[in-house]
């Protein structure tokens, strides 16, 4: 063992926002390094929604009356559904992290409060963007086409990612509340009805009236309808873009501070 003579004074946290940014980036890099170590898991995460798309496109949903080509209706719907189900992977990842010893080290270090969570959210957003790209590619392969301008296309992708961002912070908050892996299952089961009680795979018009109403109010349906509109797909209707922006922003405004507070209160 060689003696170490240099002293390493730690800079105090008066760096404020600069440290918050660099700490969050360090935590994002940590998540990306995990991808490099577990490529199979990452691949499974990308392939799963593709399977759902193909399953509904060819096995379950064929012959549905949606007022046009079903694949044209389905692809944007499944994109929105994938963003919702992203909540599950966030919950699992955060819960696993909380139950690892390393979280104690992070919490005993002079790092920015919440950098752990911000790193998680950045990595999940990146994963979702990759997932969206792959699914849009598969959509094109099975005959779906966006009938829109580049601007409309990007706006649609933006709305999907915005919705994912809101789901992400709900997921982080739920994971912090649940805490234990055993409770994650409950969350997982709840995500399914929320995801499917939407217009992702069927039109509200084809449902009983009361169910159709619930489905139309589901924020995810707002996103799906607005995205269909922007893509120029079957089932799109104008006037939904605003609510597809407001809903996620409102959810984020509620759950982001809740999650940060909950994280800071792990010491209680």
């Amino acid at each position, binding site marked *: 063992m060689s003696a170490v003579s240099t002293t390493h004074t*730690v800079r105090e946290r008066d760096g404020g926002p600069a440290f918050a940014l660099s700490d969050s980036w360090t935590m994002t890099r940590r998540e990306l390094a995990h991808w490099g170590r577990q490529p199979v898991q990452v691949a499974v995460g990308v392939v799963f929604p593709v399977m759902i798309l193909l399953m509904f496109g060819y096995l379950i949903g064929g012959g549905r009356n949606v007022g046009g080509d079903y694949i044209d209706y389905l692809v944007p719907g499944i994109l929105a559904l994938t963003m919702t189900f992203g909540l599950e992977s966030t919950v699992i990842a955060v819960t696993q992290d909380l139950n690892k010893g390393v979280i104690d080290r992070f919490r005993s270090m002079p790092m920015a409060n919440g950098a752990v969570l911000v790193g998680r959210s950045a990595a999940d957003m990146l994963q979702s963007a990759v997932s969206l790209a792959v699914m849009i590619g598969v959509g094109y392969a099975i005959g779906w086409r966006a009938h829109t301008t580049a601007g409309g296309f990007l706006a649609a992708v933006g709305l999907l990612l915005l919705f994912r961002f809101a789901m992400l912070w709900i997921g982080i908050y739920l994971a912090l509340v649940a805490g234990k892996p055993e409770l994650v299952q409950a969350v997982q089961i709840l995500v399914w009805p929320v995801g499917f009680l939407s217009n992702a795979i069927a039109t509200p018009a084809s449902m009983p009236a009361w169910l159709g109403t619930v489905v139309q109010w589901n924020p995810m349906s707002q996103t799906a309808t607005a995205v269909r509109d922007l893509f120029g797909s079957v089932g799109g209707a104008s006037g939904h873009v605003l609510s597809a922006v407001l809903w996620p922003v409102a959810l984020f405004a509620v759950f982001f501070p809740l999650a940060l507070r909950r994280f800071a209160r792990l010491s209680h």
Partner: protein
Amino acid sequence: MADAIHVEGVRKRYRDKAALDGLDLRVEHGTVHALLGPNGAGKTTMVRVLTTLLRPDSGRAAVAGYDVVTRADRVRARIGLLGQHAALDEELGGRQNLEMFGRLYHLGARRARARADELLARFGLTDNGDKQVKRYSGGMRRRLDLAASLITEPEVLFLDEPTTGLDPRSRAEVWASVRSLVGGGTTVLLTTQYLEEADQLADQISVVDRGRVIADGTADELKARTGGDRIDVVLRDADRLAAAVALMPFAADDVTVDADRRSFSAPVTDRMSALTQVVRALESADIEAEDIAVRRPTLDEVFLRLTGRSEEVRAQDGSLAKEAV
């Protein structure tokens, strides 16, 4: 100069159980202080309070002069923590771990990398730096964990049962590292269930029971209060026990006899002269011994002395204390 650690009347309850029940503690700068106690005494809870992981219900605790609740950031910049369980990212490699922690201490990318290499070399992990931590052996993991807690050369280092579950060789390595740190002026608070460990490493020992300190002092002071070392003698023939005990140079009250094991045990003050006396006495009466050993008192014996109840009895909540031997 203020104490490195100053704790006054800290309490912490978990539901119906008081984990810390008004604990007081003072640790001077540059010393090694051991919290000695059985499982569930509150040692880990105390370390978690001092490392800002847990808020106390009441009382005051300061580390390096800063309050652990109101100035948690200042405290965090000055401490290192080696917890009971490895606090490492198991998916990443050893070097990746150290670099990540270095960046989070805001050393900057270049210094974080240099520091990681330095620490890997110091703890003999350079060759395994890129291996995933989950493929490390227990001893390697412990060394990396210790390296991670030393990234900033902390003012105060917390070691929570640093050698529990380690083989003797890894244990000796951890002890050597702790000793070399103290040479550099670091204050160390360590928790342990082994009197031997506290004896080897600590300048001062606080014995903790049921969330409070029940005795403190140097190892020698405590041993004097708890009857010091003990001699264990095992005979070939159980029938000769009474005769042997009668010959012994100890007060009869101090000697405990275990007929099933053909053995007796007594406290000693001077190890070597006690050993010689016992051997001579047995030889003179032609009593054959199978084994004679001088040893440190066990934690159970220390507890028996200090609390009047053995650890075993302690576990059976509420039952009457009885002689454990």
